[in-house]
């Protein structure tokens, strides 16, 4: 049985439609207009034990709503979902002891106290054995390099340090399922890498099932092999991360460094120039034309260095999200 099973899950809700101006504000006291937002539209997917899956989509695509449904924070409008065999929105305590939700913009630690006080409270709430708790706390604080900071009030920690403390609080009870909503949002590059490295290591070691939403493709590329792309509440892609490039990007990039200091003038005939830094240039060329174009370039010019690479995943996904009206059939 899959750890997470979602079938035709949908979530619609009403939002107050406020028109501009004082007259509309006054009228709103007596009669209000509402819009129905279809945050999630009958999505279906399954996730197996030990998988780490990226859940991608632009703002408002339905990612966080889906995570809220899976953590039992909200009820669906229709459809079913089970996580570890439990229906999340029944909020069974047995289920709540076996999963964790980390939201990058929400704080679950006591602001004015050292993080260790929150950890001790978690120990009691989740009924963790004292020796096991200490062992796990030592391990997590070492892995995340915050052992010296657990006695410092949370309000005095940097955002990156706080996020690492949040992760520790979420993992102390050894959840089997971890739902991560933008865990690196707002973090500097060093903190992002620390969190990524930790998550990769810890997930592999514990064989946790992880569903991750992130706008940082670096997170996704570093951590996940599988991606589910959701846009306007619908799943647009569910499969290996590599497949996204094959499927949604018909071009590759050729990076060239010419001899001398200048660039040849007629490079456009070989492909679309995406970056020009003489004597280097980056061209986008249809996949099937790569051998032919490369041969022609090497034949005609003196080239000191050459490289062929995929387009950055970030660009491909951004382009995919921008194609709002275009229907991209799911596999």
């Amino acid at each position, binding site marked *: 049985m899959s750890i997470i099973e979602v079938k035709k899950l949908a979530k619609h809700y009403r939002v107050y439609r406020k028109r501009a101006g004082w007259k509309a504000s006054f009228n709103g006291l007596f009669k209000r207009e509402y819009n129905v937002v279809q945050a999630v539209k009958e999505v279906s997917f399954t996730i197996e034990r030990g998988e780490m899956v990226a859940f991608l989509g632009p703002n408002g695509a339905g990612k966080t709503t889906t995570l809220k449904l899976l953590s039992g924070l*909200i009820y669906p409008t229709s459809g079913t979902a089970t996580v570890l065999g439990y229906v999340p929105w029944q909020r069974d305590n047995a289920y709540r002891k076996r999963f964790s939700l980390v939201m990058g913009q929400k704080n679950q630690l006591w602001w004015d106290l050292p993080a260790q006080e929150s950890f001790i*409270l978690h120990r009691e709430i989740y009924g963790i054995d004292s020796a096991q708790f200490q062992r796990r706390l030592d391990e997590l604080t070492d892995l995340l390099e915050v052992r010296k900071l657990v006695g410092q009030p949370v309000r005095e920690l940097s955002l990156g340090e706080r996020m690492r403390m949040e992760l520790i609080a979420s993992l102390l009870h050894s959840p089997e399922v971890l739902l991560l909503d933008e865990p690196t949002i707002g973090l500097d590059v060093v903190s992002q890498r620390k969190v990524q490295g930790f998550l990769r290591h810890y997930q592999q070691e514990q064989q946790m099932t992880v569903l991750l939403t992130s706008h940082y493709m670096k997170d996704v590329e570093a951590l996940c092999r599988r991606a589910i792309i959701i846009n306007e509440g619908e799943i647009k892609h569910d499969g290996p991360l590599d497949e996204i490039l094959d499927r949604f990007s018909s071009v590759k990039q050729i990076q060239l460094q010419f001899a001398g200091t200048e660039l040849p003038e007629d490079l456009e005939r070989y492909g679309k120039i995406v970056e020009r830094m003489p004597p280097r240039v980056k061209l986008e060329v249809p996949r099937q034309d790569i051998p032919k174009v490369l041969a022609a370039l090497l034949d005609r010019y003196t080239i000191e260095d050459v490289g062929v690479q995929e387009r950055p995943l970030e660009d491909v996904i951004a382009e995919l999200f921008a194609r709002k009206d275009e229907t991209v059939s799911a596999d």
Partner: protein
Amino acid sequence: MSSSLRVKWCILRTSIEERLVYRADFMFATLVRFLPIVTQVFLWGAIYQASGPGDTKVINAYTYGDMVAYSLLVMVGRAFSSMPGLTTGIARDIRDGSIKKFLIQPIDLIDYLFWHRVAHKLVYYVMAAIPFGLVFWLCRDYFRGWPDGITLAGWCVSLVLAFLIGFLIESLMGLVAFWFLEVSSLVFVYMLVSYFLSGHMLPLDWLPPWVANLTLLLPFKYLAYVPAAIMLHKYNHAALALELGTGVAWVLILLFLNRLALSRGLRRYSAYGG
């Protein structure tokens, strides 16, 4: 210790630690709370045109000494029943989504809020014990001596009821935020109404009979009037037992309403989004 008790104890301990972080602000707030009682003593002195604690002039069955004693005892009752920030705190957590942690963790929101509040009160009593003792010692001549043991025990129970009823009314108002999101107007109305109906402003038996009878049917009297009236010998033992029994019934009713509001509210919150 059972795991449930361990969780409660841990919430209590952590909340006490949190409360002690801002020492200067807390001590200042504690001391400032004694200022109104000074104005009350002067106010009642002016109303009675009294010359001292022993003045025998009687208004509505209260001497000047009784009124000062009543005001002091109301201050003690309010120290148990007032819940600064509880309603607005719950509403804020609902509005900004902080309430999520209570939905994803195996913890009960009302239980958590209760022990958190107990911690705040315990710290307050410890900090305020000396100023309270000093004020009562300075005003000892306004009291008619110690009541008997049963009345004293009844007073202690009434203070616990004041805390429970105050907590449950204000948490219930906070839970209303599941429907209205903003409850500051409700808090304002409650403060006005409870100032009057709890006996904070005047003893309830000073009010016209029909108003007094009405207020005696409501739970607000337990917030200030009942503890003060017990210490002023207004109840015989049978009436005391009945009053406290009714108070317990109010606690049960309010607890049920809290549970109902939480369950319905969470369902609404969850159905809406957030």
